[in-house]
């Protein structure tokens, strides 16, 4: 199974016309730059979370490398950006995600350099932002941490794919039905295939967050995901304390 000239999740090398490739790169660049700036500030303000940050990056590495079969008979891979987006906010995921994409493009011929901008936009910008937005909304509605994470990661994953489908549709509008027609076709390929994968990603991410809340609660408090409560009665049977929205972290 070769990745040459194929469009797994990410758009393969050369498969986006020059104009589009340049345009998407231009769109992604400010996000990546801003993300690098935010990365520095996060590390400065919460130095003890550095290892967790590295772990979030590792999570993207792992999930991006796992090709999973899907019910439609094709395979694809989840993105893994949901975890970092929920923990650190979506901004920092832009440079981190781009780094993983670059690595994959160079060493695995998966994705591409010309299409790095477009792929970064879908996986390192849209994905994390959607995940973060969903997470914040859920938390505001007092949804539990695990369910919020599940929804955030799953929908973020799905959003990444829909964005990829849209990018392809913009570049290759159907001769007869234009963008919408292409979107239906590309969307059908990506979106349906991704449903089980997005669910898997959601579950895995929620699991990791749960583990983190147990063993790494200190860092999560630091990141305003967990709130330290003095009275133990408020903890539920799992020992999880009521949680707070990350109001100070993330966002633009």
């Amino acid at each position: 199974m070769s990745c040459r000239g194929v469009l797994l999740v990410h758009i393969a090398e050369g498969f986006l016309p020059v104009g589009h490739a340049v345009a998407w790169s231009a769109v992604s660049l400010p996000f990546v730059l801003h993300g690098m700036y935010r990365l520095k500030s996060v590390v400065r303000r919460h130095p003890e979370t550095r290892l967790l940050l590295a772990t979030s990056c590792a999570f993207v590495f792992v999930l991006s490398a796992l090709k999973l079969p899907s019910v439609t008979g094709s395979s694809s891979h989840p993105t893994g950006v949901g975890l970092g987006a929920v923990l650190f906010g979506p901004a920092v995921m832009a440079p981190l995600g781009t780094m993983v994409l670059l690595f994959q493009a160079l060493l695995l011929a998966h994705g591409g350099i010309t299409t790095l901008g477009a792929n970064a936009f879908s996986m390192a910008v849209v994905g994390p932002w959607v995940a973060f937005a969903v997470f914040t909304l859920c938390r505001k509605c007092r949804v539990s941490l695990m369910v919020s994470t599940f929804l955030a990661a799953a929908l973020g994953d799905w959003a990444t794919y829909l964005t990829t489908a849209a990018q392809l549709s913009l570049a290759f509008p159907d001769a007869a039905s234009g963008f919408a027609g292409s979107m239906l076709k590309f969307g059908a390929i990506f979106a349906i295939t991704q449903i089980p994968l997005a669910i898997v990603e959601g579950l895995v991410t929620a699991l990791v967050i749960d583990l983190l809340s147990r063993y790494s609660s200190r860092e999560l408090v630091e990141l305003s995901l967990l709130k330290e409560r003095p009275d133990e009665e408020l903890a539920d049977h799992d020992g999880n304390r009521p949680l707070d929205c990350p109001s100070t972290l993330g966002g633009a």
Partner: protein
Amino acid sequence: MAIALLIVLPLSAGRDMRFAGADGAARDQVTAIAPAYKPWSEPLWTPPSGEIEGLLFTLQAAFGAGLIGYYFGFCQARFEREKKI
């Protein structure tokens, strides 16, 4: 548990399907929509074979998993140590 099931089910259900990447389908779609389109650049380097590609993917996953494992090990050790205090 549920995750393993989600992965095992399609594998067992679609035994006859080839499980090519969603890519193949997407690429065909591109060709169907714009037959005149030709990729204008090639990857700088491609893995010499499917197996090597598999190796690289595995290495990527292993590296990431190692880091994650290290982190959780670190947290566990810290947890245990602090329990004693």
